């Protein structure tokens, strides 16, 4: 019998397993690559500050409680806004849809929460939403965001995947130094809407606290 033979020939046995487990992946995943890589018409990649904020989101692993995927149900579009579209995520590496909603979805939180609200909320969630079980992220008000890494990320995705960042995005230190003022300018616009004096001073000094970058990112979720 074929299977008895197979069980005595480990090489063919292993080959058999490999074939059986490979083709589902090939059939299901590969055809989607062309289609799902198309961005929405006016989709822009995130700015360096927003990318730095996304990396704060990854570092503090907000994905463990928050999704970014609004499903096409009336109850979700009423709560969070329009259902999510594939073309909106094209520049997201990695995707951050999440798999657990201990807290609400955040895919369009930029539409209905604002800088000052986030400032208060990240400092002490239960003070804003009584009963909240979200931890306070006070350390984000003192830790500095890594904007240089965010810039390196922008350059990398531009070169490797043609993500449309401008011609000034180059992988050299000089190009980064030239771009940095733009990031600080954007950070200042966020800090202007905040109340915390230390944050304002830090930004004026040319530093970017994590919370400033994070809020830039959250505001960009629309």
């Amino acid at each position, binding site marked *: 019998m074929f299977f008895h033979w197979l069980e005595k020939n480990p090489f063919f046995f292993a080959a058999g397993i490999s074939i059986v487990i490979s083709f589902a992946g090939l059939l299901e995943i590969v055809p989607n690559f062309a289609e799902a890589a198309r961005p929405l018409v006016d989709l822009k990649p995130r700015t360096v500050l927003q990318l730095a904020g996304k990396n704060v989101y990854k570092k503090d692993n907000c994905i463990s409680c928050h999704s970014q995927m609004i499903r096409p149900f009336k109850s979700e579009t009423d709560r969070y806004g329009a*259902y999510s579209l594939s073309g909106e995520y094209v520049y997201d590496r990695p995707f951050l849809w999440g798999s657990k909603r201990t807290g609400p979805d955040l895919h369009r939180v930029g539409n209905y929460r604002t*800088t*000052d*609200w986030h400032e208060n909320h990240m400092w002490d969630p239960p003070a*804003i939403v009584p009963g909240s079980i979200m931890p306070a992220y006070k350390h984000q008000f003192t830790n500095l965001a890594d904007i240089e890494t965010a810039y390196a990320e922008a350059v990398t995705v531009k070169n490797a995947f043609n993500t449309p960042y401008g011609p000034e995005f180059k992988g050299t230190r000089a190009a980064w130094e030239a771009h940095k003022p733009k990031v600080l300018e954007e950070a200042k616009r966020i800090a202007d*809407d905040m109340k915390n004096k230390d944050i304002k001073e830090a930004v004026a000094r040319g530093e970017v606290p994590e919370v400033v970058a994070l809020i830039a990112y959250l505001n960009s979720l629309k």
Partner: protein
Amino acid sequence: MNALTIKALAFAAILIIATIAVVTSLDIDIMGDFVYAVTMGGAIAIAVITAFVTTKYINQMKTDTPSGDLADENWDGIGEYENELPSGWAYAFLATFLWSMWYGFLGYPTNAYSQIGEYNEEVLAYNEKFESLHKNADAATLLEMGESIYLVQCAPCHGNTGDGLSGKAQDFTGRMTKEQVLYVINNGSNQLGYPMGMMPPGMAAGKDAEDIATYVAGGMQGEKPASFAACASCHGEDGKGMNGMAPNLAQYDDTLMTLVLEKGKKGVIGTMPSFKDRLTPVQQKAMTVYIQSLSN
């Protein structure tokens, strides 16, 4: 059925009953929605099938005896019978496989079914059910409706009672604070799109401004300072905005609510986001009624 099976089914029943009791206590009508009903059916299926099938096999440990032809091989003392497949298992495997073919090609054909289509139908059905029902809702209905929308959409900023969470957002128990009025006098304002257009900064200064602000923040009761004349040309003698030409400084009137919800507003406290396209006209009306009720 023997004792073990009955115990397992009883456990399944307790779990299901507890689930239904909790959900029902939250005013959720399980049979009123297809998705609820399928979910509850699925939960029951998990509990009952698992209880039944596992105890069926465990019971065989008590009642049956091992039998069959042993295979020639033997691994570290482990033998293997050449028994046939359990027929229930084999037929169920075949049946689910055939069902999956039906599901993929006929039930929800892979080339024709669309979840967005389903969403559009859901919204249509919803609109038919609710929109006509509440087109001409009376004030009491609007008030209740407003409260429920408020708790979901606005309470995270303005607080459950509308007190603005000690100065973190607009406090609806009054109209404006002195600080807010002063800020507008000093900085002007141009974001809501009233027919009067913008309000220029510096319409008053120094003690005049202080007096005006105290007066407006006090709900425009008491003595009106003479300097309020500077404001009356736009906001009216009574501060009520001259029928929507400029904001009503005394009440949250319809015009103000409509414009704030549409455009959002940035002020000394912070920024209020726009709710454009997030509320239907009826819901907006309900919001106005409810917010007005908070300041009275």
